[in-house]
C-alpha cells in the first residue's frame, strides 16, 4: 500500500495504481483523450497531466502512466496544470476541429479561441486504434510508422493487411472520425462552447477539491445569476 495526497485529500491505495485511477476513485475528474479503461495507458495526449512534488522540483507528469508512490503529493488542478491542458486542447483543436470529442474537451476546459493555423488533419495520433487493434482484437494489423510531423498510422508498408479482419474497432474507438455536434456556430473552429466559462475560482482555491465538476472550469461558485 502507498499513502499519498491528492488535492489535499490523504488516501492509501495499492501500489501499482496510477494517479489517474486514484483520482477517479476519489471522484476527481481529470480530462483524458488517449486513455481508455480497457487499454494499456499510453501517455500520448498529455491532457491528464498533474503536478507532483514541491517547490523547484515540482513537475508535470501524465497521471495515466504514473504509478503512485509513498508520500507523493499531487495537485490535479494547479494553475500550471490548467494552463498546460488548455494549450494542449488548443493544439488538438487546431488540427482536428471537426471532432466532437475534442470540441467537448475544449468547452469543458474553457478554451474559447484557437491561435494557431487551423488544419483538418483528422488524425490526432492518440493511438487508441493501435492499442484497440492489438489488445482487444488481437489483430495487431496497424501501427505507427515514420516520425515527427510525418508520423502515420498504417498497416505494415501500407499494404492491404492479412491480419485486419475489417472489424471496425479502430473506427469505433476513434475520437476524431465522428460527426461534429451541430451547435449554433457550426462553422467556427471552436463550436459554441455551451459549457464554456472562465476558471476564475483557481485564483482562490488552487489546492482544494471542488465537487461541482472539473475543478477550475465549472464556474458554478462564481456564476452570476441571470
Amino acid at each position, binding site marked *: 500500500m502507498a499513502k499519498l495526497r491528492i488535492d489535499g485529500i490523504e488516501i492509501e491505495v495499492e501500489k501499482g495504481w496510477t494517479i489517474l485511477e486514484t483520482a477517479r476513485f476519489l471522484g476527481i475528474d481529470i480530462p483524458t483523450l488517449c486513455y481508455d479503461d480497457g487499454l494499456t495507458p499510453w501517455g500520448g495526449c498529455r491532457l491528464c497531466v498533474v503536478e507532483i512534488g514541491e517547490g523547484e522540483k515540482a513537475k508535470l507528469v501524465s497521471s495515466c502512466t*504514473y*504509478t503512485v508512490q509513498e508520500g507523493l503529493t499531487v495537485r490535479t488542478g494547479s494553475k500550471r496544470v490548467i494552463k498546460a491542458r488548455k494549450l494542449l486542447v488548443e493544439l488538438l483543436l487546431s488540427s482536428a476541429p471537426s471532432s466532437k470529442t475534442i470540441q467537448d474537451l475544449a468547452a469543458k476546459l474553457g478554451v474559447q479561441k484557437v491561435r494557431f493555423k487551423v488544419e483538418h488533419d483528422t488524425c490526432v495520433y492518440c*493511438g487508441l486504434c493501435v492499442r484497440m487493434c492489438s489488445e482487444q482484437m488481437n489483430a495487431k494489423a496497424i501501427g505507427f*510508422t515514420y516520425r*515527427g510531423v510525418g508520423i502515420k498510422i498504417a498497416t505494415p508498408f501500407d499494404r492491404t493487411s492479412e491480419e485486419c479482419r475489417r472489424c471496425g474497432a479502430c473506427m469505433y474507438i476513434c475520437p476524431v472520425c465522428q460527426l461534429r455536434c451541430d451547435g449554433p456556430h457550426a462553422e467556427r473552429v471552436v463550436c459554441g462552447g455551451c459549457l464554456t466559462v472562465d476558471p476564475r475560482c483557481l485564483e482562490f482555491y488552487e489546492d482544494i477539491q471542488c465537487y461541482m465538476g472539473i475543478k477550475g472550469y465549472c464556474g458554478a461558485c462564481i456564476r452570476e445569476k441571470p
Partner: protein
Amino acid sequence: MEKLPPAARSKVHIRITGCHGFCETEPNVVIYPEGIFYQKVKPEDAEGIVKKTALERVIIDRLLYTDIHTNKKIVHEKDIPFYKKQQRILLSRNSLVDPTHIDDYLRIGGYKALSRALRTSSTEIITMVGKSGLRGRGGAGFLTGLKWKLCSQSKGDEKFVICNADEGDPGAYMDRSLLEGNPQSVIEGMIIGAYAIGSHEGYVYVRNEYPLAVKNITLAVEQANEYGLLGRNILGSGFDFDIKIVQGAGAFVCGEETALISSIEGKRGAPRQKPFYPAERGLYKKPTNINNVETWANIPLIVEEGPEWFSGIGTETCKGTKIFSLVGKIRNTGLVEVPMGITLKEIIYDIGGGIVNDKKFKAVQTGGPSGGCIPKDLLDLPLDYESLIRAGSIMGSGGMIVMDEDTCMVDIARYFLNFLKDESCGNCLPCRKGIQRMHEIVVDITEGKGKEEDISLLNDLAETVRDTSLCGLGQTASNPVLSTLKYFGEEYISHIKDKKCPAGVCRGLIHYSIIEGKCNGCGLCKRFCTEGAVEGEKKKPHYIVEAKCIKCGVCIDSCKFDAISVE
C-alpha cells in the same frame, strides 16, 4: 617506408591514429618522443617528414603551426595554445594508439584497470565509481555510481549493459572520435561496468552514419574476443561477458535511452514513460544500465588512477573532464577536452582563438539542437551541468556552436525547430504538434509575417512543450526558443515591428541594392543573376529590380568592388 634504407626502417614506427582534436589544422603528424607537431600535411610531405625529422631530427619549418596572435612558429604539440589549457585525459590517448591494433592499447597500459577490477569485489567498484563523482556524459548528468548501484540492486536473472553511441546532434562528434580513435577504452569500461553490475551481455548502439566508428568498434570487439578479454572466463576470473554491435537507423530520438532500448528490441524507436527506469526494467524488461561512450571511456581511468585523482579534477558538483566539439564561427575548430568548471570565455578565446575574421561574438549554443543560446554577458559562466541549466541551456553531450554578429537568432531558433520537428518521435502531442506550431510561428516571423502577440504565444507554447512532453527530447526542445526570446528578445521585436532582420539573414526581410558610387558596371553580377534582376548598361552603374530579386546573394559573392549592400 619502402624508400628508406633497410637499416632505417626499424628505427621509425608509423602509426595511423584516430582524431587529435585540432580539426582546423588536420591532417596532423606528431613525431614522438618530443611531440613535434606538423599541420596540414600533404602526401608529398611524407617522405621528408620520415627522412628529415624522424631520422635526423631536423625540423621542417613550413609544416609547423603558426600562433595566430604572436605569429611565431610553434614546434611542440604541448606548446600550442589550443592544447595548453586543455586537460586531455581521454583524448590524449587517441594519438598514442592505432585503433585497429589492440596491442597498441595494451602497450599504453590498457586493460590494466580491468585486471585490477576483476580482482576486487563488484560492490567495491561501484563505491569507487560513486566516490569519483562521475556523472553521465550523455547530457542529463545522472551520477554514474548511483545508476550502477540501482541496476545492480534490481532483481533479475539477466542484466544488460548498453553503450549509447547514437550521437545525433548536428555538429557534435565527441563520441565518434572516441569510438574511432580508441574503441578499446570503451570496451574496457563496459566490461568493468558489466562485472560490477552482474551483467553478461552488452550492446554498443552506434549510429549507422558513422561507418568508421562501426568498423573500428566491430574490429575492436573481435580482437578483444581473440585475446580473451571478452567471452567466457575473462582473464581467468570466471566472469563471462559478450558485446554485440547494433546499428541505429538514423533517428535522433534513439539517443534517448528508452527509445534506444525499443530500437534494439526491434521495435519502433520511440521513448516510453518513466518510471520504470531502465535500471529496473530496460532491455527485454530486464534491468539495464545504459551509459554514454564518454562515460564508459572514463571508467578504466577511474579504476586505474583512483577515484580521488578523478574527483580532484573539476568543480564541487561536477568532476572530471568533458569533451566539447567546438564548431561554428570559431578560429580553432576542433574537439576540446577541458576540466569541468572552466569558463566559456576560456574555451572560446584561449583555446578556440576567438571568432573568425575578427568579427564580434554574439552567442554560443551548447548541448545540441535542444540546447539554448548563451549571450555575451554570460561568458564567465563556469561549465557544469547546473550553471548551464540555470542559463537556459544544457550540457547535452557536448556540442558547442559559436555564432558571430552576422547570425540572426530568430533564424537560429527556426533552424533548430526545423530539425526537431522532423526528429520528434511524434508519439506525444506537445512535442509533435507543439514543435511544429513553434516552427510555423518562427517561420512567419522570419518572413515578416509575424504579429506582436506571437511572442507571448511562442513563450506559452514553449513552456507547455517543456512541461508536458513525455521524454527528454520534447522537454528540452523549447530551449532554442526560450533562450533566444530571453536573451535576444529585441531581435524578435525588430523582425515583427520594424520588419527588419538586424543581422541581414532572413530573406523575407532584407533588400539588396547596388551602391552607385562603387559599381563600375563590369556586369559580372548581371551575368550570374539567374533571375535577371540586375539591369543596367555596360560600364555604367547597375541597379537591382526588387520584384525579380530572390535574395540568393550570388551578386554579393560575384562583386569584386563591394558594391552591393544588404539592408
